[in-house]
């Protein structure tokens, strides 16, 4: 269904040829993209070399400039080595699974979501579904019940919990965890859709007792709607493939995405009450549930992994207003959970710790670097900050090529310019997010 959301693309002999070429063995190697990407990385290295050479005593700026490139490029490099050994996988490994779907006012989607879960490729007696109607004002409850009946015909148990008063997503998730008796707890957002084999791909990692959580690769289902969604598609792709991939090398994915992640229930249940009453600066935390849940498991010493072959499709905001709100919410929870994670990250793999603290410092410093480059520099030297824009663009093109190669999608260029703009303008949202971090009005989705 989500695949069909794509707009029909213009077909010319050239696009036909290109599509054919991309399908050939040689085309799949993406030799041109790889070459361009490595040439650009070489350019980045040269710029860093010159930065060192022209060092004028500005330690902070030099550190930032070198560290940011090092960090960004290191994601691709580290993720390249992520591979969980096949020996741990076993098709006969089928622990019991509970799907938790807390939802509010999702009458339109909830039936489809539940039925998709019911149809997955997994032994019917090994999984059940818990849906929570969290004080909906529309026909969500009716739709849930209809789905429960239809699923029962397929041999899948669906438990419907109805709350008249809205309690929030976090309480819904906690209720699912408490109600379930399965080994694995799997959360799927009500606006996200999984494929038939997503479950198996997510769960196979739990063979390893150290693994506490896994997260699926999230694609943007409406990527072809407009430039904004296309841009998010590129960012999502790199965020999962490179960032979560790199974190997985150390078993430390810092955020198991809310769109589709699996947790070992036994590990969660011990910390559930603490999670429910989590406060930050005296305010109960009502958003960023995915990140905080992951944090709890990581703190307890369990591993969190990214499952590249488990696919989930989600709908990304397609207008600026929604997008900005979502980003603000994410930035608040990112900052909050990073502060909490800093308390234990140093105990994890040293490489992981370094890159974690580095990312924290760099992201918080970014708005000020932007200010310096875009306001202070032109005001002082009366010159266009071309060097800065060039650097940002260079990085974005490298990201775009990475997306082009691994996602095998030719339409990445526009998104690259969007991303460049995003990295510059949106960095200041973080300052606003931190300043208003106690305000949780946008807490519910």
């Amino acid at each position, binding site marked *: 269904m989500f695949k069909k959301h794509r707009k029909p693309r213009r077909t010319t002999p050239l696009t036909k040829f290109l599509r054919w070429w991309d399908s050939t063995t040689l085309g799949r190697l993406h030799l041109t993209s790889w070459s361009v990407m*490595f040439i650009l990385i070489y350019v980045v290295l040269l710029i860093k070399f010159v930065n060192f050479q022209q060092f004028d005593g500005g330690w902070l700026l030099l550190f930032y400039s070198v560290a940011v490139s090092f960090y960004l490029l290191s994601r691709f490099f580290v993720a*390249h080595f*992520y*591979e969980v*050994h096949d020996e741990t996988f076993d098709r006969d490994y089928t622990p019991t699974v509970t799907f938790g779907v807390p939802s509010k006012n999702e009458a339109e989607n909830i039936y489809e979501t539940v039925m998709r879960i019911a149809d997955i490729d997994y032994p019917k007696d090994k999984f059940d579904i818990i849906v929570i109607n969290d004080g909906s004002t529309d026909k969500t409850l009716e739709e849930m019940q209809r789905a429960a009946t239809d699923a029962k015909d397929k041999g899948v148990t669906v438990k419907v919990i109805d709350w008249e008063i809205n309690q929030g997503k976090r309480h819904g998730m906690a209720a699912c965890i408490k109600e379930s008796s399965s080994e694995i707890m799997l959360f799927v957002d009500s606006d996200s859709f999984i494929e038939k084999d997503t479950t198996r791909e997510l769960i196979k990692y739990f063979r390893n007792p150290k693994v506490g959580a896994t997260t699926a690769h999230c694609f943007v289902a409406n990527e072809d709607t407009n430039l904004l969604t296309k841009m998010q598609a590129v960012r999502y792709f790199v965020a999962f493939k490179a960032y979560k991939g790199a974190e997985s*090398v150390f*078993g430390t994915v810092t955020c198991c995405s809310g769109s589709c992640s699996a947790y070992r229930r036994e590990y969660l249940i011990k910390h559930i009450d603490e999670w429910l009453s989590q406060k930050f600066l005296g305010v109960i935390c009502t958003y960023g549930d995915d990140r905080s849940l992951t944090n709890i498991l990581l703190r307890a010493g369990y591993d969190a992994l990214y499952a590249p072959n488990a696919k989930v499709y989600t709908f990304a905001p397609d207008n600026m207003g929604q997008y900005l709100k979502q980003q603000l919410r994410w930035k608040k929870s990112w900052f909050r959970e990073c502060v909490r994670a800093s308390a234990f990250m140093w105990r994890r793999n040293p490489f992981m710790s370094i890159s974690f603290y580095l990312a924290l410092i760099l992201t918080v410093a970014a708005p000020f670097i932007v200010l310096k480059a875009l306001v202070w520099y032109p005001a002082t030297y009366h010159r266009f900050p071309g060097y800065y824009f060039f650097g940002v663009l260079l990085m974005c093109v490298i990201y775009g090529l990475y997306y082009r190669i691994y996602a095998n999608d030719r339409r990445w260029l526009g998104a690259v310019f969007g991303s460049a703009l995003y990295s510059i303008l949106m960095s200041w949202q973080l300052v606003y997010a931190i300043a208003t971090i106690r305000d949780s009005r946008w807490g519910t989705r």
Partner: protein
Amino acid sequence: MGDPLVEKPTRNFSYRSLGLKRVLPLTIIGLVMGFGVYFYARHQESINNFRPYYYQAYLASIKYRLSHPVEPAVPTLTTTSVPVLVYHGLIPGQSQGQDTSVESFTKQMLALKNAGYHTISIEQYYKFIYNGEALPQKSFLLTFDDGRKDSYYASEPVLEALNFRATMFVITGKSLEGLSSVYYLSENEIKAMVKSGHWDMQAHTRNGHDEYPIDETNKAPFFANKLWLKDQKRYETNDEYRDRVRADLVGAKADIQRELGTTPIAFAVPFGDIGQNQSNYSDAKTVLLSELKSAYPLTFLQATGGQPFSQNYIGSKLPINMRIEPKPDWDSIRLLSAITSSDARSLPYKSTLQTAEGWRTPWGNAFSTPGELTLQAGASTTGASTTLDGTGDWSDYAVSTTAHIPKGSSFRILLRQTDGDSYMACSFTPTGISVQQTRNGTSVTLNRVAVSTNFTASNVYTAIVKGHTVACGTGGKSTVAAITDPGLQRAGGLGFVVYDDSTNNAEGVITKVEVAVAE
């Protein structure tokens, strides 16, 4: 150590693969990039200063390296004269003014290399001139003026491929005083050039490459003129002129000593202008030359038409040295012939009477037909002259020439030319023969004998110089002799002049020139 009966207790739960398939490509790419950064670091200046048109130089140097894997041997025979070439900037497209296109420059260097030429250092050149130390045949000194970035970066690949070295005359005020420029070489670049081992750094001037006010409105070259002091509304005094010139010469020398730690021994006068073209101070040349002489053992000027010789001679000890400046329309063949036609000639010598042999024509016209060299006054000149290049180191020699003079009042044979304005001459008129001495354009008759000569008939004219004695005559006899000023520098040289009091009315036809060692 495992017991085969017990099942493996642990599974492989690693999250990373360090297999060859993943490590090898990255290692290779890492090495390539590491080398790339190293390569950039090593060649940073040339990469940063690269201009697309330099590709011609790089292409030619690669081609040459591929086709000439072995460096040709240096000739074992020695030479008595050395040509010095001067270039300025190396530019894209066509050669223009003093700038040479990269293409022409590259072709000229390749042509020289293929013809067996090789370069020498300024140090070798100095020893050749002052100590008489021999140099192999086909040696030449390659020089660049102005210290421009393009002349370095565009010539470097060619020089490296051909194993040539060059001398750069730098404007120290532009290059060695910490100013940054996209046009002139920087201190770092100059140091890198010295370090490369095939560049010699010498002085062009400190601040004298610009034009300065010579009156309220006009500007003119620094060295050739007295400057106009605007605030005092007057010209410099003689002393002020001398002090200014001296300060610049000594300053440029000090700059090089300070920055490079070596003492320059050569100075190239900006624009080759020592006041011979236009000057508001008649003694400029004299003062300048004496200042140059005391600051630098070697001064380089361009061998313009007025200069009798293009090359420089072994053991000459002359402070003034001549450079050949390739003109924009010269191709490599023209350049080679400019060098070969000015090579030192040995005695006895018989001329081919062809202009291409090396006859320079500073005044009027000269043209050759088989067996004849004709001198003709131009439409606005009262005569014509021609001098034979490559004769500068003849010491005692006897010239015997057959000529008839259809038009004109006098015919002169020039000897002992120190420059275009200073020489000895045998002067023939229909009524007498005299020995003349010319210094800075002023002639004095030292001795004269009344002899009648039929100009229109073919006659044998002779001129003999031995030590300080010059003897002249017709019909194979020496008729008149004189001892010239013994304080004057001895030099070789051979030239002919025809003259008449009215313009466009002098012509001489030379049918035979033979020179032997004077007995």
